[in-house]
């Protein structure tokens, strides 16, 4: 019994590693980033458009706007494609085809982001430049690339949500004479809506946080975009592009950019957790 007690304590210590990892990450990012934010003031940092690290001017408004614009665009594409796939997989698809489609969507999640970025810059960017105008490296290109990249996230969580709807709901609706589509959008989507909302919010988190693919297709200018065809720099690419040579206050400002990104992600995560917890409560699972 004494041995059991020891093992239990060891396992508890191991189990605390995820939460302690999170705590250490938070502590270090804030420790490095906060001094600059207090120095220029939170307002000066997130509301100024002047990013001249050499002169000590650190305003990241264009990057915040850029991240939001790119994420919004990505979510329009990612939510439509991802939810479409989830509905097909759970409502319209014979099981044998599911066995092929599902691994394909998982493979989509496994492909390295640099590969997406590369395809974006070799195919999508020239296409936009030639047919729609502008430099090609743009909000639009980033949104499309990111939109595809978030599909697996949106699909897999939505599939779980749709599968968690009790069978009797679907059968009841079909028995009342509703068509498959009526059942899907009047019953299934309604019953699974908090899970689907969580899927979209988590997808949003992925889009905001994606770095390498965006660097390759966004153009990375320091000005906030005015149209879909303008180049753009996101919070993540700002960090990755300049981290290689930054020092002193410049490096600290990049950590501060990380702080803002971190806060955005934590807000999105918390919303997603709260939404999916409500679903768990409603479905009667503990």
């Amino acid at each position, binding site marked *: 019994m004494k041995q059991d007690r020891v093992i239990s304590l060891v396992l508890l210590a191991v189990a605390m590693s*995820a939460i302690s990892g999170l705590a250490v990450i938070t502590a270090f990012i804030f420790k490095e980033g906060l001094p600059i934010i207090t120095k220029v003031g939170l307002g000066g940092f997130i509301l100024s458009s002047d990013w001249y690290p050499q002169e000590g001017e650190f305003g990241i408004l264009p990057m915040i706007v850029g991240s939001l614009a790119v994420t919004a665009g990505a979510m329009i594409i990612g939510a439509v494609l991802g939810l479409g796939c989830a509905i097909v997989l759970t409502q319209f698809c014979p099981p044998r085809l599911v066995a092929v489609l599902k691994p394909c969507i998982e*493979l989509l999640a496994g*492909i390295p982001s640099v590969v997406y970025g590369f395809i974006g810059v070799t195919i999508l960017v020239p296409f936009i430049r030639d047919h729609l105008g502008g430099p090609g490296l743009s909000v639009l290109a980033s949104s499309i690339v990111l939109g595809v990249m978030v599909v697996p996230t949106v699909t897999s969580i939505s599939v779980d949500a749709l599968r968690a709807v009790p069978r009797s709901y679907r059968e009841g609706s079909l028995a009342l004479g509703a068509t498959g*589509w009526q059942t899907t959008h009047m019953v299934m989507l309604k019953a699974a809506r908090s899970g689907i909302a969580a899927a979209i919010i988590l997808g949003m988190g992925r889009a905001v946080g994606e770095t390498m693919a965006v660097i390759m297709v966004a153009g990375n200018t320091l000005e906030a975009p005015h149209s879909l065809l303008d180049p753009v720099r996101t919070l993540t690419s700002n960090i990755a592009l300049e*981290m290689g040579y930054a020092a002193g206050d410049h490096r600290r400002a990049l950590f501060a950019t990380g702080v803002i990104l971190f806060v955005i*992600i934590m807000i999105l995560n918390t919303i997603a957790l709260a939404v999916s917890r409500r679903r768990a409560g409603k479905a009667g699972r503990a």
Partner: protein
Amino acid sequence: MRITPARTQRAAAIVLWTLAACTIGVLVFVVGFILARGLPHLTWGFLTESPRSMGREGGVLPMIVGTLWVTGLAVLIAAPIGVGTAVYLTEYTREGRLTAVIRFGADCLAGIPSIIFGLFGFVFFVITLGLGLSVLSGALTLALMVLPTIIRTSEEAIRAVPRAYRDVSYGLGSTRWQMVTKVVLRSALPGIGTGIVLAVGRSISETAAVMLTAGSALGLPQSVFDSSRTMALHFYIMSREGISMANAYATGSVLILSIMAINLAAYWLMRRFVAKAA
């Protein structure tokens, strides 16, 4: 033409199938495009030679070795911790405030962008702990990153082991630890394996975090304290700086092929697990 339920049904089916087909189309296109241009350059020499003149010529042996080191080490660190956490959550405690905190930690960690892991790894492992840009710094950073994946899949796999197995094991007089190691973990092994394989896949594809922690040295790493460039980062540098498109495509092909092999392995393990549980 009147809008009848039957017509909407047909229209909806067409639209939805088109969306699914588009998604699969993108996948086929991405894989096909890279492989079509990369496979012709993918020779034995490419895999077994070191790069010459910044990667313009020669192969990718150091990057393959570097990727294996970083990935292997990361998973070696994360797997025991992840499986241990899952065992604790499922077998050694009741649901309560503590498990909620542990799960919250894992969920949040899963949502943190890789560039933040990179920043953290850079300031913590590279600078504060003095490990420098190295295989070890990269592996430790990636270990934190893949930990949530391993925890979640292991927990699901362990929960899927039937209650009766545990009862029988106890009935035969085994201790809790014997029951866990000899019965529960053994039957959950394929499920846990799936999680580990997926973690390997995530580590191989990662770029932003390893760029800031493992560096981009071209040489063959001699120890875990050497800097090393991984395949994904090599692909990024080759294509972005336009050093050699042929070598970029070939590197991309190696990446895509390994990810496909990894996903197949995960899928095969999962099927075995499900077949066994049924």
